[in-house]
């Protein structure tokens, strides 16, 4: 998916941009290399995040974000990790279409996915999220903003999440005009408020952080729950998926294999450590070290994943 980019053409037509390969943004606007929105399906675009921790260099743009065009409206999926990231995404939308952004969908409350919301605050779009997201956001928002300011510096100023205006307890159909998105709220998995978007017409699953590739998964919700939800996601009628972290789109369900292997190794290794009387302080360095070594950023997340898994499994 290299940047087969063309500068903003077709932006004035007010219709889905159809089969043009991808949309580039004016480099001058950004003061740097032009990020490229990849058209992963007709009228569906992904702005791939960088496989790194948030920093001044990447402005917090570390998660995949994107948008879908219908006949009448645009839905944004995850507004990004900072105001700058959100603005970049918004320019990508505006380069692709003049249709209004009517929906901002949040796959979950993690800062790399939601703190770009401020870039869309003036639009009055409905903000759609899992029914449990508001509580999670209330709990972490201020802390996450402070951390972003420390990681990204002054450029983080103005970054903030949008408050959800429409909550999904189970399923919701969003009609963009000729394109109906099937939103599903899942039981506790990556977090306790994961939401996916199935673009049935395109056979494309927007998985949020229920799917990681090329970056070690981060477990916050439930290990057993994530494995169950992943099994359910594999059965959805999709042939491609957009992961929360990784390439813009990947074959589905084949691309779930690495994640499933990691989660199973984490589960089996943690159970074995508990059975052997290894304490929670020592377990992180002793559970599934070979599996962890296969993943970028393992040093930042594997120990925490083991801690979360241990906490869950020791009373199962």
């Amino acid at each position: 998916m290299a940047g087969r980019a063309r500068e903003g053409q077709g932006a004035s037509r007010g219709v889905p941009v159809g089969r043009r390969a991808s949309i580039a943004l004016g480099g001058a606007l950004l003061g740097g290399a032009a990020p490229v929105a990849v058209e992963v399906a007709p009228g569906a675009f992904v702005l791939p995040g960088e496989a790194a921790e948030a920093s001044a260099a990447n402005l917090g743009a570390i998660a995949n974000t994107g948008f879908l065009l219908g006949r009448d409206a645009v839905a944004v999926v995850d507004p990004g990790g900072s105001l700058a990231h959100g603005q970049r995404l918004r320019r990508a939308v505006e380069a692709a279409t003049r249709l209004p952004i009517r929906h901002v969908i949040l796959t979950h409350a993690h800062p790399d996915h939601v703190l770009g919301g401020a870039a869309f605050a003036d639009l009055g779009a409905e903000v759609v999220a899992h029914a449990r997201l508001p509580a999670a956001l209330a709990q972490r928002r201020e802390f996450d903003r402070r951390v972003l300011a420390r990681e990204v510096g002054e450029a983080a100023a103005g970054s903030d999440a949008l408050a959800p205006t429409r909550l999904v307890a189970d399923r919701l159909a969003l009609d963009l005009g000729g394109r109906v998105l099937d939103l599903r709220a899942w039981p506790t998995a990556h977090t306790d408020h994961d939401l996916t978007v199935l673009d049935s017409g395109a056979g494309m699953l927007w998985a949020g952080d229920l799917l990681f590739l090329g970056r070690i998964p981060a477990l916050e919700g439930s290990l057993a729950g994530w494995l169950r939800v992943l099994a359910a996601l594999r059965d959805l009628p999709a042939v491609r998926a957009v992961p929360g972290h990784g390439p813009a789109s990947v074959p589905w369900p084949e691309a779930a294999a690495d994640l499933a292997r990691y989660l199973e190794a984490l589960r089996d290794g943690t159970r074995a450590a508990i059975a052997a009387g290894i304490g929670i302080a020592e377990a992180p360095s002793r559970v599934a070290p070979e599996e962890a070594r296969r993943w970028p950023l393992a040093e930042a997340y594997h120990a925490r994943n083991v801690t979360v898994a241990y906490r869950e499994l020791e009373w199962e």
Partner: protein
Amino acid sequence: MHPAFPRRPLLLAGLSLPAIAHAQGIEPAETPRRAARWHDLRQAILGDRPVAPAGAALDLTAPARAQDAALVPIAIALSAEIAPQVTTLTLVVDENPLPLAAVFRAGQPGALRALTARIRVDAYTLLHAVAETADGRLLEAARFVKAAGGCSAPIGGDLEAARQRMGRMRLALPEGPPGPGRAVPVQVAISHPNTSGLQMDPLTRLSIPAEYIREIRVTYAGAEVIGVAPDISIAENPTFGFTLAGEPGGELRVEAADNRDRRFAGTWTLGTTG
């Protein structure tokens, strides 16, 4: 009040409010405010008694950056010379709303030699351990821990399931039962949500009342091994490690009570298989 169980939560809570506001979660380690705070806390908990640096006598271990602010494993190791003389260990999480996390009392000499616990950490904090010896000396050690939000973090999993499990206990003897001349590590865990009173129900948005274990007593073959007076800074499912000496084949008994006066007990006969 038993001198080993100083409970002055109101005083400590009052003292903590302005400092918490200052702390804003991520203040660095070396600030005059932190030193002043520990000075005040020490005064409130231990009074005017002199406290000396523990040096090599006491090693306090905690992760520099916690993996989970609601479950931070800590360990206190006493040197071989000092261990038999230590009668109590006091654990303080300076920046927590209720800083006094727990007081551990040795029932048998050496029981506190290798102590472990799991705490909540609400903001970047100094952690203090103070050992009291039989001859009345106080020895302190400190660690800085980066973690935030641990006191108000949601409970892991489902609160209802946790309530139904309440009082179940687990015992781990990674090195087997004790034997003649061989003291062994023991870990005891009590299933209990141990809510801090600072957590919120994600659906009702109402705060969850504090329900927490406030007393634990462990005996072996009828004699006390260790007593613990924990508070809300202890993580859910309170889990403690200590050292047990004795003959094999005795009965280990754990008795616990929470602040609602629910009482829990577990017994295990420590045979050759542990």
